[in-house]
């Protein structure tokens, strides 16, 4: 697929130590890019409205950051296996509708439905692997399925979140706002699981070099099922967190999350092919998008019409910066 890569790595071997130092710096810069973009957005907010940098300000600005971060992690698992999930947004909406109805009124059935939907995700992974299907088309079709189910569960906006969920999402820890603690926890747990355990390496390897992994005796069917099931699990968590914040649901509530989640993964340093993803980066990417889309624009007095464009612009700027750094790497 990428003949130039092998050539580049041969070059690398021949380089002197000084050049190697420059290379390491470029690589470090590239790794820090997600954090740098978040810092830049935070600085801009602090400069425009210093009062926003407070416990209360962050709680407000990062209000929706937890569900976005969870949906981004879900998408990241799928991307790690060289696939793409275009249904995660409507899936989050479906989970939201179930959370606001069944999970409150009949918790056991609600839990069964949510576990079943994770099972559907696992089955999709198996189907995509066994029939060698394009994940884009399968998940695009599934996005209709989830949306249809969401409308069937909750035909009109409404419902109510279970009280324990409302209590959890309204948690106010001392000193550090809850969204920041939650984002840190999500990032660290997934980072440990995917980057530091041996099966995590196998999962990423299934995206990096599937042929080699299969020859080493690992089941690619199993890795794909696990990756999709994890995506389903984090999709469920995202939908539940979302309803815990908004208190009631609507069948279209998650629709914007599909594209936001892809953007978050890419912003966080993830690559589309090769199993190269970063959980902490993905969470940072999600936070950047959550902050830049709405609070930053409001402080800059830019009308909300341009919120979506801000996401696109940030994506393009960060990718452009990445190209500049990569050029230095060569």
């Amino acid at each position, binding site marked *: 697929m990428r*003949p130039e890569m092998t050539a580049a790595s041969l070059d690398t071997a021949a380089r002197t130590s000084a050049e190697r130092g420059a290379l390491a710096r470029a690589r470090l810069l590239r790794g820090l890019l997600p954090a740098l973009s978040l810092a830049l957005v935070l600085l801009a907010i602090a400069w425009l409205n210093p009062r926003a940098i407070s416990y209360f300000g962050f709680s407000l600005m990062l209000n929706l950051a937890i569900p976005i971060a969870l949906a981004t992690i879900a998408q990241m698992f799928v991307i790690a296996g*060289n*696939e*793409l999930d275009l249904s995660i947004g409507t899936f989050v909406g479906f989970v939201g509708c179930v959370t606001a109805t069944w999970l409150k009124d009949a918790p056991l059935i609600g839990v069964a439905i949510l576990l079943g939907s994770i099972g559907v995700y696992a089955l999709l992974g198996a*189907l*995509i692997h066994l*029939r*060698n*299907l*394009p*994940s*884009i*088309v*399968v998940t*695009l*079709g*599934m*996005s*209709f*399925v*989830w*949306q*249809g*189910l*969401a*409308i*069937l569960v909750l*035909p009109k906006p409404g419902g109510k979140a279970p009280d324990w969920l409302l209590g959890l999402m309204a948690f106010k820890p001392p000193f550090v706002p809850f969204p920041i603690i939650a984002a840190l926890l999500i990032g660290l747990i997934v980072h440990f699981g995917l980057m530091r355990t041996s099966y995590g390496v196998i999962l990423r390897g299934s995206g990096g070099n599937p042929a080699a992994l299969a020859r080493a005796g690992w089941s690619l069917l199993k890795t794909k099922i696990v990756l999709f099931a994890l995506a389903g699990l984090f999709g469920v968590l995202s939908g539940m967190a979302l309803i815990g914040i908004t208190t009631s649901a609507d069948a279209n509530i998650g629709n914007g999350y599909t*594209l936001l989640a*892809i*953007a978050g993964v*890419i912003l966080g340093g993830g690559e*589309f*092919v090769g199993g190269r993803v970063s959980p902490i980066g993905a969470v940072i990417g999600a936070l950047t998008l959550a902050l830049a889309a709405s609070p930053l624009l409001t402080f800059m007095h830019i*009308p909300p*019409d*341009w*919120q*979506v*464009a*801000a*996401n*696109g*612009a940030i*994506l*393009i700027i960060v*990718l*452009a910066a990445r*190209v500049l750094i990569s050029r230095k790497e060569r």
Partner: protein
Amino acid sequence: MASVKSLLTKPWIWSFLGALLVWLATIAFTGGYGAGGMVTAALSLAVFTVIVGVGQMFVITLGPGNVDLSLPANIGLASAVAMKVMDGNDSMIVVGLLAALACGAAVGAANYLLIWALRIPPIIATLSASFIIQSIDISYGRGLQIKPPPGFADFANWQILGIPVLAILTVLFTIGAAIALQRMIYGRSVLAIGQNIRAAWLAGVNVGRIRFLTYTLSGALGGIDGALLAGYFRGANVDIGNEYLLASIAVVVIGGTSVAGGKANVPGVWGAALFLVLLLTMLNTFGVSAGVRLLLTGLIIVGVITAAGGQKALR
């Protein structure tokens, strides 16, 4: 007998058979009532899917990872631009169509510029572009004259003997697209790039130029589609193109084009578009609710892909 057999090996025949089956199921349900009217309605609606489907087909044929996710936003913006330029005035119809075409082509060119300059996968490039286009559309379309001129609306809805004129024109256009694909240097180059981009480059194909042309073509078709949609539905709005993201990709894949690239099929786009439109008509005739309709549409698309599958993935 032999000719039937050779017909059955054509990948596009299945989409037409599917469309026929759905149509028969519907008229069996209504007892034959409205059979002709249904074909007319299906043809007029399928046109819009076919136009963007052909653009998407050329893009997908370029090979793994190539897909245009900016079509819905593009269609929305172009429909607003066309209606603004026409301004309810019959004498401005041609200018408005040209404006929509130019707007779409500019979006397509911008898509390729991002792919080329940032060296990012087309999915991400067209995604970021669609974010920005969507905002431009929302901001631009606010408080805008959105009604088409009466002459243009009549033209978009014009029928001769129950056959929509727009459908006839689109058939001619798809014949042109098929010739371009199979018999012209441009189309052969697209196929060559999709089969093996390095081999195509070594064989002297100007890969960059062909990809640029293909994304611009897809954008331009999205633009013209937006203008026609606004004429047909007698008004433009931001969401007018939303359903065409799934539809454009689905008709390409159901129609027998390889998602791995390098193998395209124009007649299949028509068959698949008719199949999808008739499917919706059937579900509406059966009187199912919006939720069930979405659910079944999704399940049938996943089912068809599973049955047709077996090729390398789109990325």
